């Protein structure tokens, strides 16, 4: 972009912000409603994550496992309930509701960790309360990760590659093998809010220019038409990022929703999703000619998003046709990826499929939108 074009672009983007800031209804939808949605949903779905009663199934009884046990018990969220003999005994305690989490150490824990480099550890939780269970597991994972880090630095910081070791944590929910979790609500709300802002508000904003006739004037100006469209997207991009940040803060600090994985990976995934949604909004704006039609079409897209994205119903339990259909819903990929990052705490390589799917859809929307846009102008 040349310097002169940049100035033109910026003066146009500034105007878009003024439109939003001067319209109380837009402001309410863009910057108040998303946060209220999270708080309301968060109150309905309670996450009581304190006083987690934790038992230990320790076949090793070595220096490392006992140290980790002490560490978990001394954490303010956990109450140690001592040793458990067998897994059957653990299941019995879960059924009686006397325990919330069981840590199962693999055999020869310390030795495995220090010599072969991989130690096994299992977390058993009560799947009949999937929501709380996920939070409990996430807390335990954080303590384990800290422990691993401390051990590592005690061992001398890993000058040699062979010093590297990790604790392989597997979490299993008893009584709910599908691992259906109500904890989806934060990924889900972010998914829907972004769709609402990027698709509905953006398409309305573009179509409004057509309706009022200002688009003609803009197209007759030397500002290249691609900048006109891009400048309209900028404020919604910024607002979406802002909403994502505030929702994360509210849910993390206010409601104890975990961020087990990397925040950076989450932000990257969300940014790709935001861009894809913006392209979808752009596409909508090129096929309708009134603001009302833009709103209806956006809503038509948001409803399947709620049902097919796995936000409300588990995708695994849907009929095959619905499962196939869910693959074209961008929110499905976003929600799946954010659940993996926030709750399971996986690394970027495990969400690569989701990110790639989102990016591919975004690209497809962009090409289609560009095509329709060109036809409309000719």
């Amino acid at each position, binding site marked *: 972009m040349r310097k002169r074009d940049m100035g033109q672009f*910026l003066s146009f983007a500034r105007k878009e912000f003024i439109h939003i800031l001067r319209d109380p209804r837009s402001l309410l939808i863009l910057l108040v409603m998303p946060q209220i949605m999270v708080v309301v949903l968060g109150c309905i779905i309670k996450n009581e994550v304190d006083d987690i009663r934790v038992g230990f199934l320790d076949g090793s009884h070595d220096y490392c496992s006992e140290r980790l046990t002490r560490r978990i018990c001394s954490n303010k969220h956990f109450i140690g309930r001592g040793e458990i003999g067998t897994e059957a005994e653990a299941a019995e305690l879960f059924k009686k509701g006397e325990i919330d989490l069981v840590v199962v150490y693999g055999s020869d824990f310390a030795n495995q960790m220090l010599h072969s480099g991989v130690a096994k550890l299992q977390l058993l939780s009560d799947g009949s309360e999937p929501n709380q269970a996920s939070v409990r597991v996430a807390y335990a994972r954080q303590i384990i990760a800290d422990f691993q880090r401390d051990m590592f630095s005690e061992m001398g910081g890993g000058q040699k590659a062979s010093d590297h070791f990790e604790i392989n944590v597997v979490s299993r929910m008893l009584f709910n093998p599908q691992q259906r979790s109500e904890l989806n609500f934060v990924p889900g709300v972010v998914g829907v809010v972004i769709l609402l802002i990027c698709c509905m508000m953006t398409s309305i904003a573009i179509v409004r220019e057509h309706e009022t*006739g200002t688009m003609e004037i*803009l197209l*007759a100006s030397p500002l290249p038409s691609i900048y006109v469209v891009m400048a309209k997207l900028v404020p919604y991009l910024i607002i979406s990022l802002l909403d994502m940040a505030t929702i994360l803060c509210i849910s993390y600090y206010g409601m104890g929703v975990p961020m087990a994985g990397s925040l950076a990976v989450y932000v990257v995934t969300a940014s790709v999703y935001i861009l894809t949604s913006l392209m979808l909004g752009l596409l909508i704006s090129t096929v309708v000619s009134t603001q009302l039609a833009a709103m209806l079409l956006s809503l038509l897209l948001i409803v399947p998003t709620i049902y097919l994205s796995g936000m409300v119903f588990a995708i695994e339990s849907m009929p095959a046709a619905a499962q196939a259909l869910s693959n074209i819903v961008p929110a499905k990929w976003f929600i799946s990826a954010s659940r993996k990052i926030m709750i399971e705490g996986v690394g970027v390589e495990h969400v690569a499929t989701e990110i790639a799917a989102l990016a591919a859809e975004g690209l497809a929307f962009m090409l289609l939108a560009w095509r329709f846009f060109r036809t409309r102008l000719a």
Partner: protein
Amino acid sequence: MREEIVIRAEGLTKKFGSFVATDHITFEVRRGEIFGFLGANGAGKTTAMRMLCGLSQPSEGRAQVAGYDVATEYEQVKRHIGYMSQKFSLYDDLTVEENLRLFGGIYGMERGRVEEKIGELLGELGFETGRKTMVGSLPMGWKQKLSFSLAIFHEPGIVFLDEPTGGVDPVTRRQFWELIYRAADRGITVFVTTHYMDEAEYCDRVSIMVDGRIDALGTPAELKAQFGGPTMYEVFYALARTAKRGD
């Protein structure tokens, strides 16, 4: 004085499928002229004008505006013209000053020059007090005058006005035409479409389009002599009656 041609159309044509909206029109407009572009609804005026503004590609023929080809150098064409559409087209939720700044910015004008121009323009219109008024709360007449001022804000050589006075009262129309004269006096070429035949009389030359073709072209006096009518209304009516296309 040398007469410089600033708009030249040769066989300019636009087809939408089998429908020929603008049918091989040929004309020239000279610098500083007020050129009236007349025709009934659906005669092809707006299509022709959109091609001249670089908003639409011609199917056949060619046209030069301000020395640039509309089909290939449309970005340059856009830089050198002003455009005011039928629809009122300022932003209601921006103040007068903000609207002017926005368009100054879009046309890539220097910041200092924009501020200077805003002062000049509001002074000329006698509208200094309205600087910070929201455009949405202005009366229609003012909005129209501002739209025109905006179209020539970046000091283009040519300004295209598409039915600029639709829906305003005769007094405001009269004031509006005073603005047009003032612009023409400064050397800006004015290309205007209108439905009002009294406005046609204000033009230096007019063309009348029927079914996509230009059926008459000349000064109002010449056309009245040629078609034997006392006013432009009779001339227009005589021609428009021959149209085959419906509205």
